């Protein structure tokens, strides 16, 4: 072979190898082997394998062959479940989560205040949580917009947003919007009754309908003026109103309604209101008395996102019991267990275990309450919530069954990337501590010499 050919061959080889190297960096398959796989979509596979390509799960089964170039992670009998989804959270937000200066605040948006450096994102990962719905508080009958995030720790605010997830509108009924427990702080605000809360929503809907009508009329006039070719003066557009645009987005179904409520009567009456206006009411937040109106919840397709054993912190939160979530689920209601709290978020799997032990739910049902059910409520069940081919590789790995009281989350993956690895994390922490110690030692020596 002539030298030139050799050069050509080598450069071709370099090119091909280089390219394949690039490909493998981005698309290197990962095989998780020999684990108990809680698929949620079907049976749990003991000693199963799971193949990830890029951000997606491509194969789930037993004894999968190792594709060329795949990274193999031996689970050694650990348990894998779909990443936990918390449908009611307030983390990763900067500043107050309640805009309570006005009664209706449909214009405010959690998207504006995402804080990707909130360390609670990392803590969520340590508890196997991979997606959250983070939202406005419950101070207003119609509060601000919420947003669905993936726990891509270290990424920018824009990169945390779960693409394709519907935007939400936070509503609240009962004691919080009527400020029953705020102990006279601030100015007195209408309404002071549950009737008033509902009326304030209805009122705002009428305003938003008027607003939409005004714009439609303007557009008609503007078009007529344009068509008249100068004979008619173009009209002045109406003033844009960000708040009413937010309400109009609820009426058009663009925003999914997540309604904070405790009492069954109130929930029924708000279901009626939403039917009157054709509003997409997806879920009652907390909904502690939801077990009393399961027929209605099932009939109108409204879910509840609730606690297992957290109640009696105020008058309207007394009438519930540890069986509430399980009972509602048995009657066909879509039930999710949520945290509403950065700390509880880290052990939602314990809450699911409690609903089995004290509420009588089946293990499968309890796991669904952490995965596919919240995924449905958040409108992201196409992508997450189960382990099956085609879904996002959002996974939580536990040393024991996730419902075992002694279980520990050891690894959490989002989009096929490991964002939390307990062993590695502990090792790095130990190293950092040792380095810190070393840094301090010479100082001490110097002090001794003095």
């Amino acid at each position: 072979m002539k030298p030139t050919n050799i050069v050509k061959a080598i450069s071709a080889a370099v090119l091909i190898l280089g390219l394949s190297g690039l490909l493998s960096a981005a698309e290197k398959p990962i095989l998780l082997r020999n684990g108990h796989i809680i698929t949620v979509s079907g049976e749990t596979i003991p000693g199963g394998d799971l193949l990830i390509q890029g951000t997606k799960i491509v194969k789930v089964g037993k004894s999968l062959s190792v594709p060329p170039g795949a990274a193999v992670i031996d689970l050694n009998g650990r348990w894998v479940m779909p990443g936990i989804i918390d449908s009611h959270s307030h983390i990763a937000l900067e500043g107050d989560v309640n805009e309570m200066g006005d009664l209706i605040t449909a214009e405010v948006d959690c998207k504006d205040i995402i804080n990707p450096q909130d360390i609670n994102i990392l803590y969520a990962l340590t508890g196997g949580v991979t997606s959250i719905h983070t939202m406005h508080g419950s101070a207003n009958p119609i509060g601000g917009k919420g947003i669905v995030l993936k726990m891509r720790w270290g990424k920018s605010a824009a990169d945390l947003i779960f693409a394709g997830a519907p935007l939400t509108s936070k509503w609240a009924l009962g004691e919080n919007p009527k400020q029953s427990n705020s102990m006279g702080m601030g100015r007195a605000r209408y309404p002071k009754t549950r009737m008033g809360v509902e009326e304030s929503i209805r009122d705002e809907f009428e305003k938003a309908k008027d607003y939409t009508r005004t714009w439609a009329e303007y557009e008609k006039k503007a078009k007529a003026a344009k068509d008249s070719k100068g004979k008619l003066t173009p009209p002045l557009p109406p003033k844009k109103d960000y708040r009413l645009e937010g309400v109009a987005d609820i009426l058009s179904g663009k925003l999914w309604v997540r309604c904070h409520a405790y009492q069954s009567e109130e929930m029924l009456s708000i279901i009626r209101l939403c039917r009157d206006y054709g509003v997409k009411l997806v879920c009652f937040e907390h909904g502690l008395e939801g077990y009393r109106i399961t027929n209605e919840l099932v009939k109108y397709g409204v879910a509840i996102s609730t606690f297992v054993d957290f109640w009696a912190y105020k008058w309207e939160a007394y009438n519930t019991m540890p069986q509430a979530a399980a009972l509602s689920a048995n009657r066909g209601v879509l039930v999710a267990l949520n945290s509403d709290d950065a700390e509880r978020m880290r052990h939602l799997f314990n809450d699911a275990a409690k609903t089995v032990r004290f509420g009588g739910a089946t293990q499968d049902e309890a796991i669904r309450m952490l995965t596919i059910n919240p995924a449905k409520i958040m409108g992201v069940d196409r992508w997450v919530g189960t382990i099956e081919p085609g879904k996002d590789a959002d996974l939580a790995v536990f040393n024991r069954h996730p419902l075992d009281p002694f279980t520990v989350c050891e690894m959490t993956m989002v989009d096929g990337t490991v964002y939390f690895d307990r062993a590695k994390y502990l090792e790095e922490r130990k190293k950092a501590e040792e380095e810190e110690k070393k840094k301090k030692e010479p100082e001490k020596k110097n002090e001794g010499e003095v």
Partner: protein
Amino acid sequence: MPRRTRFGLFFFSLALIFLACLFLRSEQDLHRVWAIKDARIVTLTGPPIEKCTLVIRDGLIEALGAGIPIPKDAEVIDGAKLTVYPGLMDGLGQALLKLPEEKMDMSRISSGDFTDKDRGITPGLTAFDYVNLGKAVFEKYHRLGFVAGHVMPDRGVFTGRSAFLCFSDPDKNKALLLKDICLGIGFSPSNFMVYPNSLMGVQSYLKQALHDAVYFDQARSRWLKEWQGLTRPDHSPNLEVLADYATARKPVIFLCRNQHDIRRSLGLAAEFKLNSFIADLGGEAFEVIPELKKANARVLCTVAFKAPGSSLYAQRGRTERERAEKEVYPKNPARLAEAGIPFAFSSLGTDDPKAFAEGIQKAIEAGLPKEKAIEALTKTPAVFFGLDRALGTIEPGKIANVVLAEGEVLVKEAKVRYAFVDGKRFELKEVKPGEGEKPTVNVTGKWELAVEGQMGMTLTIDFSQEEAALSGKLVTPFGAFDFTGGMVSGKDVSFEISISVGGQDIDLFFSATVEGDKMRGSVVQGGAGTAEFTAKRIPG
């Protein structure tokens, strides 16, 4: 002593005082022509000129050059050992502003009878009305080389409008360069009772208000043009002011507490096509460099180097926070310079001119080239605020704002000997270190502190005083916070504590007078105003 002699003495001293006044006048006003001979002059229009003469006449730079003739009417200063710099300028500060003290009247706010001021919406507030100039203040600045500055109210959401002043004359009408240049936009709600009371509320409020201002402007100008067939918009003093800024006829300054505020600001600036500056008060512009570059942003950079509460460093605890404040944040100006992002320095966040100058030195130690630092204090602020034809370099025709130093400026113990501001000479005598009254009290120990008012509360402070230096720990219902850098002077104590509540940083400035085991004073909280407090020593 006979009566007559006493009278004589009295008149004699009166005459002395009169003479002293005359002398002062003569030094500053009567001599309007100066020639600085044989100095090294850093013109910033080219390389420094050695053995150069600079002629100042009637407030302006008349001529400069090596060996140019010295006018006969000039008073000559031998500059052989001096370097002449363009006077340094604070790109954005507050030190010369004395805004009225705000007391939160809870009962009024609770009754629903609140004003735009309670909401932090004060676009009409103009800094010029509140500047507080005085020779003593000037001297503090002149010693460090500062001769002019840009001041703006910084409380609330629409904080008010700025003014640019020379530190030349206690009469603000003489000191003023430009007023109502910029409008401040802040992200901190001013009060938790009224809309907007949250960060997300502020963001929405800003969008609506900017939109309303543009709409008002268009509707009004259309009515003024057509007169017929249109309903005129209602007058609004706020919208009238905002209109200029919302339509980019004048610039706004976004007061950013952290990198997220910077991103929000860039978003708003793009959405509403604003003419804007980013005041990087959290010192996190280095985290947003690509976005800043893309937006051709102009930055006003703090040198306080405090990690904001939202930062990961602060969330990871004290050790990590302190490390970052030492190693990461001081590099911010150097990173901006490296990226070619235009920036001026802002004294916001530093307590006094000395801390401001020290902060700039820290930035230089952390890698900011000295000439870039000087540029950020001279040319850049002049260009930013439309003053570059009058200030920023040493050129004939420009305002005579120059400082004469033995050695360099922006070094520890800088020896500025003269400052010429608006052509007026200020001579700066050498002072011995450790000025200030000696402490006559020792407050070391635990004190119980009662803050008055409806939001009143009881706190404990553990002071530790070493001569005039005061440090300690404040215990609050939200945790305990250490502080250092306090001062005791005579019977007066003053100290600053940064507390962090729910991820938000709040700076508290305490000042009080001690009487035995009691003290009485006031605490100023940046946005929320002032509260009185009393404290008593806890025995034991």
